[in-house]
């Protein structure tokens, strides 16, 4: 329980009316509503999780909310990031979020942090808040948020999502476990697909984000039983909630009995990002590339070129470069796709493409290892849409 100091907190007539449904709840009441107003919450990220949870926290009457986001609104965000509207595409998320939250509750004070949370700024940014909510989308930032919370002694309300499934818990609260007690190490880059690669049901982060908001409010009010020591798993497809026990690891390098991590480290390094990037660059160096404009010229000149799309069938159905053939990357990885490519090429020049060039580069490496040479379309179908034909949607 945080027990924020409410001695100097007053609620105006407007606020009393606004929060009347809280005030008549014995578990909240006037004192509880004052606690919410006295409280400060930092939300890292205003994306899928941050969008719904900050809207509810604003509506609930949290006094001060800090937003950390350096990104701009993209059309592909709107399927789930309900804080951002269509008119905000291309504009900073932090501006869009501020506008929406202020509209929900003008009594709210919003602190804007239009930066990427880093080892250099995390402690300074997090220090001034009662609790931190992790609404990020990558492993380095999640370990950074965790370690900053442990070092500063702040609760970390955690949520993460993948396709139709989500996880949520409260870390480092009242001697409970931290993120590193649950997962001591991150997976190597590329092993776990991101939402951008794996897709996500738009409503899913709504459910998980609202669980996070609920836990934050309970911690501030000091009511109920929090998710401390319990990992909540949510499966939207089967509409099932399950929970697993979570224990503090006495040997945890950050929150254990004899911590070895006593200041913030290089989290990109910890998650193997620079190493993976170097390998990617090395692989790319041996890869032949062609730009979308150059490919268009080849096709217009009637050159003997076979263009193969390695995205999945749904992406192919939604948008494609005319005259291309679909051979999804998994089929190439599993083997049967290789023979299909070989028979399609049959002496012609081969160009491979995907959404933005990553998967087709992977496919080319596999094909090269079995003696099939080809060229990668730089920037994939997105580059084709930008350079050649804007009518092809960037899905």
């Amino acid at each position: 329980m945080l027990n924020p100091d409410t001695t100097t907190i007053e609620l105006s007539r407007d606020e009393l009316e606004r929060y009347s449904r809280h005030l008549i709840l014995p578990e909240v009441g006037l004192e509880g509503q004052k606690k919410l107003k006295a409280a400060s919450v930092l939300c890292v990220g205003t994306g899928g999780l941050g969008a719904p949870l900050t809207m509810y926290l604003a509506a609930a009457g949290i006094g001060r909310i800090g937003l950390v986001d350096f990104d701009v609104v993209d059309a592909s965000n709107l399927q789930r990031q309900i804080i951002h509207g269509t008119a905000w595409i291309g504009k900073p998320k932090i501006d869009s979020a501020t506008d929406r939250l202020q509209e929900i509750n003008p009594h709210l004070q919003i602190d804007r942090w239009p930066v990427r949370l880093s080892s250099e700024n995390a402690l300074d940014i997090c220090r001034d808040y009662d609790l931190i909510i992790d609404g990020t989308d990558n492993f380095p930032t999640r370990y950074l948020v965790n370690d900053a919370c442990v070092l500063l002694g702040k609760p970390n309300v955690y949520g993460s999502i993948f396709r139709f499934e989500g996880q949520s818990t409260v870390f480092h609260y009242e001697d409970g476990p931290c993120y590193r007690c649950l997962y001591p190490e991150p997976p190597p880059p590329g092993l776990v697909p991101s939402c951008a690669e794996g897709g996500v049901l738009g409503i899913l982060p709504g459910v998980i984000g609202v669980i996070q908001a609920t836990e934050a409010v309970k911690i501030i009010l000091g009511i109920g039983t929090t998710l401390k020591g319990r990992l909540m798993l949510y499966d939207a497809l089967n509409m099932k909630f399950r929970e697993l026990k979570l224990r503090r690891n006495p040997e945890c390098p950050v929150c254990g009995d004899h911590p070895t991590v006593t200041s913030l480290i290089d989290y990109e390094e910890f998650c193997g990002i620079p190493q993976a990037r170097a390998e990617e660059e090395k692989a790319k160096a041996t890869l032949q590339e062609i730009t979308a404009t150059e490919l268009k010229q080849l096709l217009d000149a009637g050159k003997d070129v076979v263009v193969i799309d390695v995205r999945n069938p749904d992406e192919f159905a939604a948008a494609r470069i005319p005259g291309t053939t679909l051979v999804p990357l998994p089929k190439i990885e599993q083997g049967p796709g290789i023979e299909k490519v070989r028979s399609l090429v049959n002496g012609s020049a081969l160009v491979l493409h995907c959404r933005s060039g990553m998967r087709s580069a992977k496919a080319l490496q596999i094909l090269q290892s079995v003696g099939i040479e080809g060229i990668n379309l730089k920037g994939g179908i997105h580059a084709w849409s930008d350079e050649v034909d804007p009518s092809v949607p960037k899905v």
Partner: protein
Amino acid sequence: MAVKVLIPAPLRRYTSNQESLELEGSSVGEILDDLTGRYGELKKHLYGEDGRLRNFVNIYVNDEDIRHLQQQGTAVQPTDVISIVPSIAGGF
């Protein structure tokens, strides 16, 4: 003895999209051997090059992490449910 094992979404592409499997064994280690025997590609996702279970894939017997039981030596009953819970980071 068959025990139910729940397969998480990120790993289902290696189990022909099956969400749960009935696998043979009397300990967590035996069950996982049966799993990786049937679905070979899963092996590198569950075990590191040193042959140890990876630190970002947790295995639970019912609601308890096997790190707090007897690791892979943890005995299982037919009524137990084994969950594989990998680290996911999505949030945007």
